[in-house]
């Protein structure tokens, strides 16, 4: 039914609408940047056994919380004033959901920082190094989730679900190993418990990065990919 002779501009006739959408997107990217920074600082606190970094992460969480509220306000304001439709509507909805997931990731970073402070207060356990690949994997998933949103990269967004399954497996393997170590090193049981919790927080971060990927897929293509489970074979 389409006609091949019709061309139309890509900017909104309402410049206020264009500006409001741009502002919403910029604030979302700012929030993503702060969340990534908090996660990076958490890593420094945990692996360098640096309590200052842990305290910084806990303090900086407030910035992310403030931006979450601001993004909510902006999104509601856009819906109220401009009644976005089609790709505009999908972008506003996805951006508001992105902010919820970023806030949860930042909360997980705080949880890890708190557990890290407890670990730091006790003698170091060599097995901490086993957690490094899991941390790296989860952190990369967050970066790629944000990049898929920022760059409108459908394939990168789609790939996160499969990567999350790999992260789940890494978490299970790690928890099994720590549980087994507890039976042999009873003195370190509290530290092993903290490491299991931290691994679990990282697994949750992977879930939230996957949510961002699903919302990005919806924003780009209107495709619903939530709760679609992979069947082997």
């Amino acid at each position, binding site marked *: *039914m*389409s006609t091949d002779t019709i061309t139309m501009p890509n900017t909104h006739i*309402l410049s206020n609408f264009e500006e409001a959408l741009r502002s919403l997107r910029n604030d979302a990217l700012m929030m993503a940047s702060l969340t990534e920074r908090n996660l990076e600082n958490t890593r420094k606190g945990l692996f360098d056994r640096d309590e200052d970094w842990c305290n910084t992460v806990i303090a900086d969480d407030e910035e992310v919380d403030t931006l979450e509220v601001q993004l909510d306000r902006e999104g509601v304001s856009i819906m109220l004033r401009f*009644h976005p439709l089609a790709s505009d*509507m999908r972008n506003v909805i996805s951006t508001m959901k992105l902010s919820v997931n970023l806030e949860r990731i930042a909360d997980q970073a705080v949880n890890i920082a708190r557990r890290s402070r407890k670990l730091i207060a006790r003698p170091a356990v060599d097995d901490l190094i086993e957690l490094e690949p899991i941390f790296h994997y989860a952190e990369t998933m967050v970066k790629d989730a944000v990049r898929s949103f920022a760059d409108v990269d459908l394939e990168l967004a789609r790939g996160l679900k499969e990567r999350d399954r790999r992260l789940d497996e890494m978490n299970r393997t790690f928890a099994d190993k720590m549980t087994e170590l507890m039976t042999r090193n009873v003195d370190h049981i509290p530290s092993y418990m903290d490491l299991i919790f931290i691994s679990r927080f990282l697994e949750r971060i992977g879930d939230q990065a996957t949510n961002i990927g699903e919302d990005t897929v919806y924003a780009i293509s209107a495709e619903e990919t939530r709760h679609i489970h992979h069947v082997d074979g």
Partner: protein
Amino acid sequence: MIKTMDSHPPHTASPQSAAPSELSQARADFLKVCDFDFYYGKKQALFKINMEIPQRQVTAFIGPSGCGKSTLLRNFNRMNDLIDGVHHEGDILLNGRSIYDKKIEIIALRRSIGMVFQKSNPFPKSIYENIVYSLRIAGVSNKRILDETVEHSLRGAALWDEVKDRLQDSALGLSGGQMQRLCIARAIANRPEILLMDEPCSALDPIATAKVEDLIHELKHQFTIVIVTHNMQQATRCSDRTAFFYLGKLIEYDETQKIFTNPGEKQTEDYITGRFG
């Protein structure tokens, strides 16, 4: 069904009985437009329109001014025949039968396909006489039938409770929203198959608009409704399917949810998101 020249006059049955279409299974191609071109003199206004409008659903026509949506609407009851120099190619079928069939009586066609306009246009008569006007023209004089038709139509248009005690008052004393609902009542007094609405709420305040939209939602159980609107939110609220027209062409026609969430054509996306220049 459309009356032919040898049909009986309408309204011999009780107005409270169900419309024929209510009893049968809804037809997906109740109103079918086939390769339809339309010209005002030498100027072509519609280009090869093909679409099927389902029975007992609300179909919205959207598009910028001059895109042809009202022109197509006015072809459905052949109102455009009244304009000098117009001609068409292709066909429009109502329930499988061409509306251009020479055996079809045009007055009967317009009873079958009622129309509500942008500006309400009640006759300078009483509320009662506005409703029964077309029945009187058709020769119905039985007071019981006329009274029943008035009540049935005004109830159908959600106006009965507001005017039942002043049916003999002038229709021109009603508010804008009431006048528009009176026009809808007048249209459904003919027990049409289809109701065409050409921007029916554009001159109404939000409350009156909400009442008309609510009415559209109720009426679609009995009638097939085609509504032309410039209000995107109204199209999303009221319609089951939406057609986007541009420069006389049907660009996209799909379920309303699909059109306003994820349109298939870039032109549709640009128009409904306000990128249309």
